[in-house]
């Protein structure tokens, strides 16, 4: 049959699209229909089933911060996924407490996926509540003041803009907080 495609362009187009669409549809359209957790916000009140908590939608200010995160291309250096690897769970953890792994239902309100492909800086999937607003301000102004050896660019135009800074910090503080796995407002020094 494929021999016909050698000299007949119509056959060719049909075969090339047909083969492509089998995999194309089964890997893009089918998965969200099969796996409902992709679209159902996280909610659990039974400690026996794992961490409890509830995912809530972003506030207007958090959305503004989210847009700044996109605008500055933060995701090119920071991933947002605590993978099923032991080292990820430890690194996202806090004061000896392991972090829960990231699950699809924690990202339902993310209108721009921020999972990332490259971890030049640390993962941010559980950064919410780890550092105070003051810490973030100083860090955005010049990361090397707080973390010697860091190669993160300075963002003075955000650090010196109270509105943008507050929005971006508000967004960052939501990261990984749907699951209740450690106390609020207990910042790292």
């Amino acid at each position, binding site marked *: 049959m494929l021999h016909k495609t050698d000299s007949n362009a119509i056959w060719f187009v049909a075969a090339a699209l047909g083969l492509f669409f089998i995999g194309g549809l089964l890997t893009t359209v089918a998965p969200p229909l099969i796996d409902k957790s992709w679209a159902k916000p996280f909610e659990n009140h039974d400690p026996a089933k794992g961490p409890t908590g509830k995912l809530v939608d972003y506030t207007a200010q958090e959305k503004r911060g989210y847009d700044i995160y996109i605008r500055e291309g933060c995701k090119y250096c920071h991933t947002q996924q605590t993978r099923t690897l032991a080292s990820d769970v430890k690194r996202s953890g806090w004061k000896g407490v392991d972090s829960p792994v990231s699950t699809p239902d924690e990202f339902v309100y993310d209108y721009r996926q921020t999972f990332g492909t490259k971890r030049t800086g640390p993962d941010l999937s559980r950064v919410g509540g780890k550092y105070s607003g003051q810490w973030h301000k100083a860090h955005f102004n010049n990361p090397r003041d707080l973390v010697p050896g860091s*190669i993160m660019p*300075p963002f003075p135009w955000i650090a010196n803009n109270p509105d943008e800074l507050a929005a971006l910090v508000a967004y960052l503080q939501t990261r990984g907080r749907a699951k209740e796995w450690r106390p609020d407002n207990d910042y790292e020094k």
Partner: protein
Amino acid sequence: MAIQPGSESAAAVAGQEIHQDTTVKWFLLGAVGYFAVVGIIALIIAAKFVWPQFLGSIQYFTYGRMRPLHVNGMLFGWLLAADMGLAYYLVPRLCGVKLWSEKLGVATSILWNVIILSAIVSLLGGYQKGLEYADLPTPVAVLVVIAWVMFGFNIFATIATRKYEQMYVSTWYLMGTILWTAFVYLTGNFATLLPGVTGVNQANLNWMYTHNAVGLIFTPAGLAVAYYFIPRCANTPLYNHKLSMVGFWSLAFVYVWTGAHHMLHGPISQWLQTISIVFSVMLLIPVWAVVYNFIATMKGQWHQLGNNVSLKFLMSGTIFYLLTCFQGPMHSLRSVNAIVSKTDWIPGHAHMAVMGTFSFIAMAGVYWVIPRVFHTKLHSEAAANWSFWLFMIGGLGMFTSLWLGGFWQGWQWNNPSIPFIDTVIALKPVWMVRFFSGVLIFSGIVLFFYNIWSTALGSGKSQPAPAKAEGRVYAA
């Protein structure tokens, strides 16, 4: 016996008059120009890893804005434009007819320039969609779709009027590129924005696009160019037509399934991860079929590499293709992925695919085509040879430093007692080597740019040789 790019050499002599090649010139000269411009951006972002303060406090030149410009500029401004220009050259020749419309072709090229210039302005301004590889804002993405339809229509209309019934492998690959790109691009740039598409669902569509931007856009376009120019430059028939069919149809079926391997161990359904791993390993079939065909075609012809720059680029590109497509399936195995994923190994791998393989192949084509469409000789063979070695040495320096560095980084990450910042500091010598490799690569780009543009600009000054005589020279 299937038709061969060599077998139309008789037609090529006669055909010198039928081909106007205006569109080819517009696309290729533009692509080479953007290669040089975006090369500067590439060098700047490599420098930022070593000197993070460099251009650091000006928001338009910050890393997070320049990286998408580097990626999109290289992918669309240089590589895709070069592949399109080469398609406008080889499809009419393989079909034995004129390009369907030079006017439409030139209009496509003008639109393409509008797209790339708007991309530069919008990405530096922070107007990006926030989806990797699909960073261009929606209005610009709409222009890309229009340009692609104009390109596809022109090529398909040329094929529809062809003189030879049987189509050569390069023609299939280009038709595949046009069809698949359309759907892959729409998925990544528009399906991702449909209401209700968020989080993991959006990421899955995004990776389908990102992965297939390489697998079903740059791979088939690059292979079309290589399938044409390897036999053409070596003046020898393609080894095996059947094998090229195996390579093509297995690519058509297998590639699209693998997007989810970008999220192995991540928050995406396990069964989908497993499917992506199985199909990633199956990718070895189309790759080995193609590489075997290329290598076997060169049997007894290897001595020609010495004085043929295009062949040097083509065959090194083939070897890089073999390597990059061996790495790919290996990364997708869960145990290997746990070490290399998200590390600096990955840009090493990506650069071997897009630069080492497909840019090498496109450069081979540009070096071959530009003197021919301008009916002149290449400005400097020596400079072309230098550009090859700069690319080769710089490329190998970049790939190996990032692989070794990335592998080491992955091992450090897997030991949580090492603070993250220590794994950053440890990589600084690696990034230094990468920057200086980048300087070599950029010098290669500059020589390439200088040589191609000098050939084009100088062609008018020397007295134009009769087209027929030139044609005979190159057909020999």
